[in-house]
């Protein structure tokens, strides 16, 4: 079985030039944890979502990853400090804050998509042969489809 019948249209897309503030509003409005970022011709560029938002709330050194910045327990930032950090990057563009993300095709085997969803953040952009966004797969949608006959 392929992903074809489970692919859902993307609820919304973001553009590289959108501000982080607008992206946060879009995430909240559509109730999604992650949204795809596309160019004017619809080519998939990356994703912006809760994980990228969390990165913006942390000191930049956190981007070094677990090996080089294993913990930040010594930092005593207050909630106001953290809010101030987010506010300072609210006008940054999505293009700067987005992350690359692996994609699947509609013809990809469903079991492969399940594996990628299990290993990733439960969200997969679906692209056509030209790299244009054709839809999305979410863990919820896939599981919902699979359990509906139980």
């Amino acid at each position, binding site marked *: 079985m392929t992903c074809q019948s489970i692919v859902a249209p993307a609820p919304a897309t973001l553009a590289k030039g959108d501000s982080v503030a607008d992206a946060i509003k879009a995430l909240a409005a559509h109730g999604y944890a992650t949204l795809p970022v596309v160019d004017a011709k619809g080519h998939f560029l990356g994703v912006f979502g809760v994980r990228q938002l969390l990165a913006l709330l942390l000191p930049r050194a956190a981007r070094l990853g677990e090996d080089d910045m294993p913990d930040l327990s010594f930092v*005593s930032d207050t909630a106001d400090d953290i809010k101030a950090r987010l506010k300072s990057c609210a006008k940054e563009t999505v293009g700067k804050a987005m992350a690359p993300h692996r994609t699947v095709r509609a013809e990809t085997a469903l079991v492969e998509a399940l594996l990628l969803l299990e290993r990733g953040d439960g969200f997969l952009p679906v692209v056509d042969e030209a790299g244009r966004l054709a839809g999305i797969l979410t863990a919820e949608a896939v599981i919902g489809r699979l359990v509906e006959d139980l």
Partner: protein
Amino acid sequence: MHGEAQAWVPNVLFGWNPMIVATAVLVATYAVIMSEKINRAIVSLVGAGVMILVGVLNQQAAIRGVDFNTIALLTGMMIIVAITRKSGVFQFVAIWTAKKVKADPAGILFMLQIVTAVFSALLDNVTTVLLVVPVTLVITEELKVKPWPYLVALIFSSNIGGTATLIGDPPNILIGSATGLTFNQFAVNLGPVALVCLVVTTIIFHFMWGRRLHATAEARARVMGFNELEAITDWRLLKQALVVLTLVILGFILAHNIHQEPGTIAMFGAALLMLLHNLGKDAEQQSHDVHHTFGEVEWVTIFFFIGLFMVVYGVEQAGFLHLLAEMLVNATGGDLTVTAIAILWASAILSAVVDNIPFVATMIPLIKSMAPTFGGAENLEPLWWALAMGACLGGNGTLVGASANLTVAGLAERAGHPVRFVPFMKVAFGLMLVTIAIANVYLYLRYL
């Protein structure tokens, strides 16, 4: 460093001249390393393989060329640091010193240079910057000051600190292992010049950047609010690691008296720390931890060294380095002063633009073969110090001059603060020449 056995006589394919073939392999190996198109460990291992396959060396001769004392010292220290860093002690020290100067940006710039230099003297430079740069980036972000001055200063202090000891920088490890010069001899001979260079560069950085760095009272309060004790994640491990590190350093200091090589001391220290760290754990957990610890050893560096030793040994056996040494002695008129100063400046300039490890690995047998010209191996000491100072301090000249520089640049880039080649060189090259001038005066006054 290559053992005394000389049983192998080069027997090159098609009867080609071994010296020409070996030199061609060396030049090709270095050219590909410098191009940075292919990982340097792959290049050096391919070069070593070619040396054997064409008959310049056979396998036994190639293995004789590997300096296992250097390999054991590097690997042992990498294991010790991989375990120790998990305790959070290095972050603790960086934060503690930042708070000691009341989170003043200029004071932190100064203190981080001192901390980095001391760590670099006792550990490998790359490891030191891996430990200090992340916490520096957190501090500068909280202070809302640009990290650039701190990153440049950390590069300088790591290379200068590394100059001071036998274990501080790979060129010194190579020189120490090849010559038998002890940890104490390195500390006594290179410590003073490293200290002067550190003082001079901290003063220059203060006038260039430090005095203009300002942070608001609010930002400073945030750093003062850091809890350095929270950085310590494992107190038991911290105590074990500090005991073992102290024993290993003591071992280096007493190596001559206890008739042990630094490689044995470092590797035994690593084994001891792994033993302590795994006591009381079940077999599965031990297996997982040991696997993880070995995974943190920089195998790229280790295999780069192994291949390089073989390539250089091939060239040495084929007689090319002896010929090169004769040419160098002729060019300097056999004068020790001229030779030492030439080695210092040539090492510095070359180390600024190419990897200093292959350069030093080649220079060692070359300098050794000058012994008859200067009346014996014991008279070569000024040349070894010239090579060590030139290669270690020269690494500051450009971003590609030392592995630590590239590590800082890589970390900074990932955190969104790129350090570019040209802006770095504009500041660093001149300052590197200042440190080499200091080294030149020191060399002349003390040894020549």
